């Protein structure tokens, strides 16, 4: 497993090539999230991402370990950017390689849902009218909760 927290962008083709090389890979699922032009408080000028160094890495590693226990995975990678991003910029990549696609699809969703609700990152939307902290969303909490009853 690989966890990378950094300001720099990622290249999806490079990440895909890396995942493809995992043992007996037949399926690769990659999710990437990017900054929307429209935030909760209007048009975005930028998005600032803050994290808790150390705890972020260990909490994501724990999520990936849990994913590896639930599904047979060849490889799993998370890259999460921090710092100041602008609309259209990549924020996060979750990539999973497995022998068959059901495990790859499920594990990718699982990691993303847990990342949204457990990993200590915070987003701040910068608009021309001011800046606003992004609140955790109920639908994200619900999305993560389903994994507790439906392994």
């Amino acid at each position, binding site marked *: 497993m690989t966890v990378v927290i950094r300001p720099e962008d990622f290249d999806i083709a490079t990440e895909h090539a890396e995942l493809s090389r995992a043992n007996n890979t037949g399926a690769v699922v990659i999710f990437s999230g990017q900054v929307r032009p429209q935030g909760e408080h209007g048009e975005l000028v930028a998005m600032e*991402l803050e994290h*808790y160094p150390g705890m972020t890495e260990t909490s994501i590693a724990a999520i990936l370990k849990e994913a590896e226990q639930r599904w047979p995975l060849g490889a799993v990678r998370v890259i999460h950017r921090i710092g100041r991003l602008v609309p259209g910029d990549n924020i996060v990549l979750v990539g999973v390689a497995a022998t068959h696609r059901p495990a790859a699809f499920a594990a990718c969703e699982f990691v993303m849902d847990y990342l*949204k*609700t457990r990993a*200590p990152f*915070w987003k701040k939307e910068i608009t021309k009218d001011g800046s606003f902290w992004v609140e955790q969303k109920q639908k994200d909490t619900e999305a993560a909760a389903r994994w507790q009853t439906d392994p």
Partner: protein
Amino acid sequence: MIYIKYFAKYRELMQMASEELLSNCNTLAALKLVLRETYPQAGTMLDDPRCITAINQQIVKSDSTPICPGDEVAFYPPVSGG
């Protein structure tokens, strides 16, 4: 020495990202009391039911959790990454 960290909106509220507190408090409750007495704005954070506390990067729920010299105590709001 206790190492305290504040994140996101609490970092802004407390007007600092971290501080070192020379204190002999031995539980989370005692530390919170010190913070309340030191900073008038700390109540806004500590009274927020959604405020998350982590000691040595592990989330704790109980105010009776012990704190020892050298511990890192973090206060942060619900996360919003991804």
